[in-house]
């Protein structure tokens, strides 16, 4: 396992009375794309937020490149090369598109911001993702749902992160834009230097782009297979089976 870019060992997280994660073990090799699936409220986003330093785990370890790290902050995780697309996007409505796209990683011509360079690069990125925007100087508050998500995705995908955490990056994307973003992810994967965890509810997309698929259930990883060894049907069945038994349990309770 020494080749793993990231390992999560025995991670647990409670919110007050609610146990979101019980004992999560997970690993991603260098250059690997891991798909993480699970029901709504299964704890996927919570796990991402632990790996990126936003939440502290109640127990367990994060191992980056074979070294255990205790993440003090998101900034700290970033300095280790971990970058995240959050499900809530983490955009600042009051700022322009290009400022959001470079948030906390601004291009600077000291002491001032290099707005021109950021604007140019932002336009390029959005074009590559096939996203139409009125203007990159517009405030993100005025954008459509998909446009907003595109900005959040671009922010991380075009960073030089070594470990990318993508929490439902395609949820609001159109068919065309979604395809282009998947292409981008495939590009990154081909270069073989970035490890990616991607959360998605669209299993077709997951199978399309991932090397391996994990299922998070009851606060644990209960399923771990290579994408080539499983199928859309199996994944769907897995989730629905769980639903059927829980429904039965409820009926009998």
């Amino acid at each position, binding site marked *: 396992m020494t080749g793993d870019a990231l390992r999560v060992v025995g991670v647990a997280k409670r919110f007050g009375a609610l146990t979101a994660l019980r004992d999560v073990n997970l690993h991603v090799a260098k250059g690997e794309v891991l798909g993480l699936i699970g029901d709504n409220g299964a704890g996927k986003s919570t796990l991402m937020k632990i790996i990126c330093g936003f939440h502290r785990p109640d127990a367990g370890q994060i191992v980056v490149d074979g070294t255990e790290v205790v993440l003090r902050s998101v900034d700290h995780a970033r300095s280790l090369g971990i970058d995240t697309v959050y499900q809530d996007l983490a*955009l600042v409505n009051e700022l322009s598109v290009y400022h959001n796209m470079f948030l906390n990683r601004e291009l600077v011509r000291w002491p*001032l911001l290099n707005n021109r360079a950021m604007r140019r690069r932002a336009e390029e990125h959005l074009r590559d993702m096939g996203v*139409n925007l009125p203007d990159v100087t517009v405030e993100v508050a005025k954008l459509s749902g998909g446009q907003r998500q595109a900005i959040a995705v671009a922010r991380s995908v075009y960073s030089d992160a070594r470990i990318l955490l993508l929490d439902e990056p395609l949820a609001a994307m159109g068919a065309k834009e979604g395809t282009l973003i998947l292409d981008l992810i495939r590009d990154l994967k081909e270069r073989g230097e970035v490890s990616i965890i991607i959360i998605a509810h669209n299993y077709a997309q997951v199978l399309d782009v991932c090397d391996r698929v994990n299922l998070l259930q009851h606060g644990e990883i209960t399923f771990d297979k290579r994408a080539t060894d499983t199928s859309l049907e199996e994944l769907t069945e897995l989730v629905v089976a769980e639903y059927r038994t829980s429904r039965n349990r409820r009926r009998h309770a």
Partner: protein
Amino acid sequence: MADPAVAEVRAGRRGPALTAGRRVLDGFLRRREASVLLVALGLMIYFRWASPVFLTRNNLVNIAQATAPVAIVAVGIVLLLVSGEIDLSVGIVAALAPFLLHFAIDFYGQPVLVGLLLALLISAGIGLVNGLIVTKLKVPSFVTTLGTFFAVQGILLITSHAYPVPIPEPAKGTWQTWLGAGPWASITWAIVIVAIFHVILTRTRWGLHTISVGGNPVGATEAGIRASRIKIGNFMVTSTLGGLVGIMEAFRINTIDPNIGGGTTLTFYAISAAVIGGTALAGGSGTIVGAFLGALVLAELQNGFNLIGYSANTIYLILGLAILVSMIANQYLSRLRRAGGT
């Protein structure tokens, strides 16, 4: 501009024959500060009409001197409001700072420059305390700075025996003139400070992060921005500016008075100037140039009605109505601006 269709629409709307003058006007109107500026100009015209002395040099000095302290404190207040906090204690820091200067020079025999730096440093220290309590101990800034307000007031009254003292001898002359007594001294400082912090708020990482921390606290943290650092910094800036204003006002009125800033009055005016200028109390958005114009509007109102000769009781009624009318006009103008602009 990713979509050519959209670009087309924009160009089409503006029309091909866009004259240079029209473009400058457009550029001006697109600025958020445009509407307050128009209100300030409107008041100027009204008062010039009501009293011919309004625009004489002497009276412009009066207006400038009334604008400057509020504008400088408002700079700090804008930074804090934008980052989602508030500081009630800045007015009392303004009262304390000149006493610190006095102690350093008259009791400890320090040179003026050292005294000045010490006074500003201690002011900054009060801001640091505010910032630490707010960010590390998570006490809301309103009550934190209410606490420091009382505490600093106590220190001020105890050390000053609640009695004014004259400006220290060594500070008279050049220091005093440049730092407040000169007719245009305080407004020059104000303009320089406003310009610098306008650039900081709009063109530096610090400013961007200030907006982020106030606009989306969770999102900013998710993006790895260290909210505490930003907030503490802005508390320190505010207190330091408060201290500077106190010293400048002491120099201007030629006395070190424990009531400079009038407790919360100065703070209050600064917050009002910020809000009039377009800063949201809820955080995430604000303009420093706007706050300057807000301070100007307040100073014009106060000065103009005094010049016309209203007496105290009446002036409040007039002032209140004038504030309401100006702000309704302001709102109306900025709606026009938004409808026409981007």
